[in-house]
Each structure stands twice: as C-alpha cells, then as structure tokens.
C-alpha cells in the first residue's frame, strides 16, 4: 500500500514507529523477549491468563506484531502465523528474530485499517498493545471481523478508558484525578508524537456487535504487587494496582 492511501494516523504512526523501532527494541526488547508467551505491560504469563489457549494448527494473525516476539513463540507452538505491522523497521526486527529462532512465517507490511488479506482466513486475530492501540477502531474492528472465520475469536490487550481519563497531561502521569472527559474519547495525539485510540466501554461493545462479534470477556489486568516493567514508573504501577491501566477484550465471530 502506498503511503498516500493511508489515513493520517497510519502515516503518522508509520513514521513514528520507523523512527522509534530501534530505540523501542533496545529499551523493551529484553523485558518482552521472554521464552514463553506473556501479555502486556507487566508481562503476565499467557499460561496464567489463558486468553488464547491452544493455538496449535490454527491460522493466527498477530495484529501489529512489532518485532514478532509473540508470533515466533506461537509458531513454535504449531500455530500457522501471519504477522502484520505498519512499520518496515519493526518488520526488519521481526525478520532478525525469526532467523535467530529458525522459524518462517509470512510478514505483511500494511496498516491494520486496510489489510491485503482474504476474508475469513483466520481462527484467531490477536494483538498485545499492537495495532488496536495505533489504528482507528472504527476502521480496524470491521477488518478483524472480515478476516475471522465464523467461530473464530479476536483478543487484544491495550489501554483503558480509566488510563485515558486519569492521565494528567501537565505532569504526564496518573495521580488519581479525573483529567480528561470520558464522553468523546477516541483519538489522542501523544507527547511522543504517535496517535493512539481508545473508546468508552459502551462504544466498544456497540462496535463489536455491529460487526458480528459477540463480547466474550473483558479481562482487566491489575498490576502485580511486585510489578516489574520497562513501560511504567513505580508511581504508575501503584496507580495501576487500584485502577485499570491495561485490559484485554475477547470477542467471537458469529
């Protein structure tokens, strides 16, 4: 897809991730490069959360794969993986990781808002703070629904409406105050230069249902007591012990 076909956020975020990829992998690569699948800010084991379950023999799409840490591990578990990402530089990191692990699967360079992949071709579409955060849900949820086979599911971790309303833009942190309105929550330009998205709980539910996705679960992740992360400060982890800073939606194609 030529960059002129991209939405403004897809263009901005492509440039952002091409610019940031090396630094991001250097800063977080060790934290998220674990020998088993783990979710999110605090790298909680999939074997504990059991969101994806057994992916052996399934067609699985990682929706915003970055350096494909997840995809490599799931491919080793027997999933037929495809990884998509909007950033060429992130995909170069993914190719390096695949070569090191000795696994092969398809990587697609595209915006999650319009994917060059056939209808009903996946059993599972998932993201761990992936394209779901950086693409517009009003565009990517219909895409995920289109790509899923009937009976397949999507699961994605990301931020939360509480993270949105609780963020103090003046101090760039979370202090327990309500700082941004809930109504109208959708698109936000971050101080780092990316564009991120979040929706009110009800808007997510309506968007899923309009796209033939049944709501199965909303797993709200509480920061562990002994939280270790390269993504958040101790103060932010303390906030996330009390209010949700990360959540995983799971929806199934009807």
């Amino acid at each position, binding site marked *: 897809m030529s960059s002129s076909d991209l939405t403004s956020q897809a263009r901005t975020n492509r440039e952002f991730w091409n610019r940031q990829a090396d630094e991001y992998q250097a800063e977080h690569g060790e934290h998220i490069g674990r020998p088993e699948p783990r979710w999110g800010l605090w790298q909680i084991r999939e074997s504990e959360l059991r969101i994806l379950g057994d992916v052996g023999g399934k067609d699985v799409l990682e929706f915003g794969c970055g350096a494909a840490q997840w995809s490599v591990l799931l491919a080793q578990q027997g999933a037929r993986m495809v990884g998509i990402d909007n950033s060429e530089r992130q995909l170069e990191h993914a190719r390096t990781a695949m070569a090191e692990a000795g696994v092969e699967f398809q990587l697609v360079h595209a915006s999650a808002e319009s994917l060059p992949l056939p209808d009903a071709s996946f059993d599972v579409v998932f993201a761990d703070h992936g394209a779901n955060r950086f693409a517009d849900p009003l565009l990517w949820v219909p895409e995920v629904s289109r790509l899923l086979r009937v009976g397949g599911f999507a699961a994605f971790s990301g931020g939360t409406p509480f993270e949105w309303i609780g963020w103090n833009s003046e101090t760039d942190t979370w202090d327990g105050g309500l700082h941004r309105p809930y109504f109208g929550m959708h698109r936000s330009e971050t101080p780092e230069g990316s564009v991120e998205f979040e929706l009110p709980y009800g808007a997510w539910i309506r968007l899923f249902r309009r796209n033939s996705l049944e709501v199965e679960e*909303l797993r709200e992740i509480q920061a562990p007591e002994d939280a270790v992360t390269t993504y958040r400060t101790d103060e932010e982890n303390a906030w996330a012990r009390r209010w949700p800073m990360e959540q995983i939606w799971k929806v199934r194609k009807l």
Partner: protein
Amino acid sequence: MTLSEHAQTNREIWAENAAEFREPGKRNWAQPDITWGIWHLPESEIGALPVLEGKDVVELGCGTAYISSWLVRRGANVVGVDLSPEQLATARELQAEHRIEFPLIEASAEDVPLPAASFDLVISEYGASIWADPYLWIPEAARLLRPGGELVFLTNGLILELAWSVESERVGETLVYDYFGFHRLEDPKDGAIVFQLPYGEWIRLFRANGLEVEDLIELQPPEGADPGRWDFVSNEWARKWPSEEIWKARKPA
C-alpha cells in the same frame, strides 16, 4: 421471605425513606413519557427498551412503580417487585388514583417468588440494580427471563461511584475508591448498602448466567439540564463523565 443481611438493612432504611419518595413518585406517575434516571432522558432518544405491547415484564425494585406504570400504559403486562412495604403502599395509592392496576409483590430481587422463564423483559432503574447484590439478583433475572428475553437496567455510573466523596456527599474529580474488587459500598451515615461492579465483572457475571452482552449506554445529559433534587452531581460533571449507565443483556433464543 428470607432476606440477606444487606436486604434487611436496606428494607429498614426504605421504611424511613419512603415518605420522601411519595411526591417524586406522584410526579413520575403523572408523566406521559418514559424517561431514564435523574436527568429524565427520554426513552425516545435513548432507545434502550424493546417493543412493549403484549410483553410480560417484571420490574425488580420498583419502588413507587412509576416505570411499571409507564410500561403498562404501553400495553405490557407488568409485575412490580419491591422489598419495601412502605414503597409498595405508595405504589398502590397511585395505582388507585390513576386506575391502573397491576400485581405488586413484596420480595427481594435476590429471591423472587415468581416462576422461571416467565418474562420477556426484566427491568430495573435505581432499584435492584443498585440495592441488591449483583451476584444474587443477576442469576434471578436470568432465571425469570424466557429465551430471547432481555434484561435492561440503569445504575449509577461506575466512575461516579469511584469518585464519590463521603464528606461532601457529592461526586468529585478524584478517584477515591479502588476499581479492582469494587462491589459493595456502605453509606457511613444511614448504613444503606449499595452495589456496583467493574465493567469486566458485569460481563463475566452476565455470561456466567447465560446472558449475552447487548449494550452499555452511558448517559450524558444535555447542556444545562438540571438534576433537580439529585444535586450530588452537577451538569458540568455529568457532561464529562457518565453519572448513569444502562446495561442490556439478552438470554439467547
């Protein structure tokens, strides 16, 4: 009737509160339109309810039964359930005054003496939806619904509950209570016990009781709307964050 401890407490509190709810009940009974919550948002704009004509409806925690009266006037067969005999006495007076009769049952929504699979709609507005324990009344609602039937209830906005200031008895702009584990809140003044759950916990509870999640409608009042006697929340606050929300769940056909 066996009552849970909090139901017993809340029943005693409603014995005292009921007198105060007579006048608002009277006004609501006289109102022609169906509206939701403290901002009186019209159902014609919210669209939370299914077609009512000929439907069997139970209102859990009906109080003075104004919601029931609106639904009866639209052709529904309604049963009102409330655990406060004083509230039900007001409801009976208003039934007589308006010549609109429907059954009223004194019971807790946590243990409803009505047969399973006998209703197309279970509704609650500031009734069971805040005063009863969701872990007890949601299973009851699911039991009472026929396949294809719907549960629709209005409750306090969760953010409003979390930002509640006990001292000022108003909602503030600081989160006071923890989200994780939120369930039961006791009023330090009168001891009233109300309930609310995290969003993900409601979804888990619906699904554990065989209900599909249909909608969550966060209510926003129009600019300038006045909450009247419910001055614990300002229009300015409620324009930014949801002061009330309506959950909809369905029992699969």
